[in-house]
């Protein structure tokens, strides 16, 4: 076979699942008077970071009620109890910190 002869080879890549678009939640008109959950994913000192964000809200936007909320277990587990609480009692969420 010469150097310029062409070969046919197989593609080594697997099969990706179909991507289905998911709806994003409608945004709020304002945060004033609303409850924002600061959701701690309990990884690498994310709790310390979110408590600083909570302090920022208290200083700069006192009309916003914040709730510091650690997830129930590790971030690898779904946490429907926490998500239900936030839906029932909150208006928005900040989740962190993804490392």
């Amino acid at each position, binding site marked *: 076979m010469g150097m310029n002869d062409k070969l046919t080879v*197989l593609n*080594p890549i*697997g099969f*990706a699942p179909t991507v289905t678009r998911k709806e994003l939640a409608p945004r709020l008109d304002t945060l004033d008077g609303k409850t924002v959950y600061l959701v701690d994913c309990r990884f690498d000192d994310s709790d310390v970071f979110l408590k*600083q964000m909570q302090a920022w809200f208290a200083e700069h936007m006192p009309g916003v009620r914040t709730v510091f909320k650690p997830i129930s277990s590790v971030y690898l587990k779904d946490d429907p109890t926490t*998500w239900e609480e936030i839906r029932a009692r909150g208006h928005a969420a900040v*989740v962190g*910190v993804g*490392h």
Partner: protein
Amino acid sequence: MTIEAQYGVPTVAVHTDKFDRVVRSVASVNGMPGLQQVFVPQPVMGKSARELRAYVDGNDPLTGRLVMQEVIEGLTRPFDDEDLKPVEFDRSTPRLCAPDTEENLHRLFLENNWTDTLPIVLPTEERVAAMLAHTHRKADEVVGHMRPTYFREYWEYTVEKVAVNAVMAGARPEYLPVILALAATGASARGSTTSSMAAMAVVNGPIRHEIQMNSGTGAMAPYNHANATIGRAYGLLSQNLQGGSVPGLTYMGSQGNNYAYNSVTFAENEERSPWEAFHVQQGFKPTDSTVSVFTGCRSTAFTLGLREKHWREHVRNMLRGMDPHIPPTLLLDPITARQFIDRGGFRTKAALIDWLYDNARMPATEYWDYQLVQNYLYPRATFGEEPWASKLKAAPDELIRMFRREDIHVVVVGGETNGYWRIMGCTYQKTVSVDEWR
């Protein structure tokens, strides 16, 4: 993503900037490219409250805009057409690459991140067909599903796709049943974790001799063709069949890991072991051929033999050196395996594991302060999961067990040139029949 999509709560996700590409990619393949994401500097870990307040008050390092301005806008700014546009992009995988010269195809495979950067064997139709002749399974049969990390989507792969990667690794066709069994575990040898894990594969049963695997001198590399190429195939098939292993995108291992080149693949030295084989411990018959997969291989402790006076202390010291989040698997040369019987009277692997379980201890206060314990075990303890919930009740100075008994394993490997042995920190995943893939 769950709270936004399934519970309808407007959400902003905060990440460190090193994860820019990966989190945008994960959001996109989960159908949420418009997910609101804000970035702060890496690292958060270990920073003081004052330093993290500076992150909050400061700018997103990727956009240069104020972090809190982006957080507030992310929760209140109405979505525009760009955020809501349909998610449609071509993710189909053609069976063949466009015909090209050998040199150009090697470049294509390298540039597409389809290799481990070492030269590969091009998977021509003839070579793949020869590989497929060594299994009774159909080429289009689905073998399994794999993903590089928890938040990514599972990709699917067939027998032919596994064979393609086996050819690339330089494996001989008769190795294919072992490689298919590895693929069937669904356990990736190319996890995306920042901790730079590698996998380990232990082969048991008659297949070891049929394909001339090495369980003796130099078994753990680089002195046996089957060990080397089966392990390499496991790595290549993992990265290619799970949707990639690209630094910054689908691989985030901060330091990388040399073990990943051949996934620490070897045969257990059943003939020279004084104990039952690993696959028999897992419920298989001695005449079954199997492969067992471990993940999370990073840490290794090492010594020579077992000294008469202080062997217990030496082994305890080795165990204390392991991160308590990652359980120990002892890799014992047959000489040392027999020494464990002579010194400690461990007539079975189970008896040795009992001793290891009871002797791997550290003060509770030190245990709970490990970062990985904080990240992965403390949350489970507070959720009430055992045994961690009970450990949480221990006094700070109480010596608590570092590992669960069921996570500790023993494998015999080596050629008895001396009694060296090591502890591999790793997590056993599963044992799969090779015979079902012949």
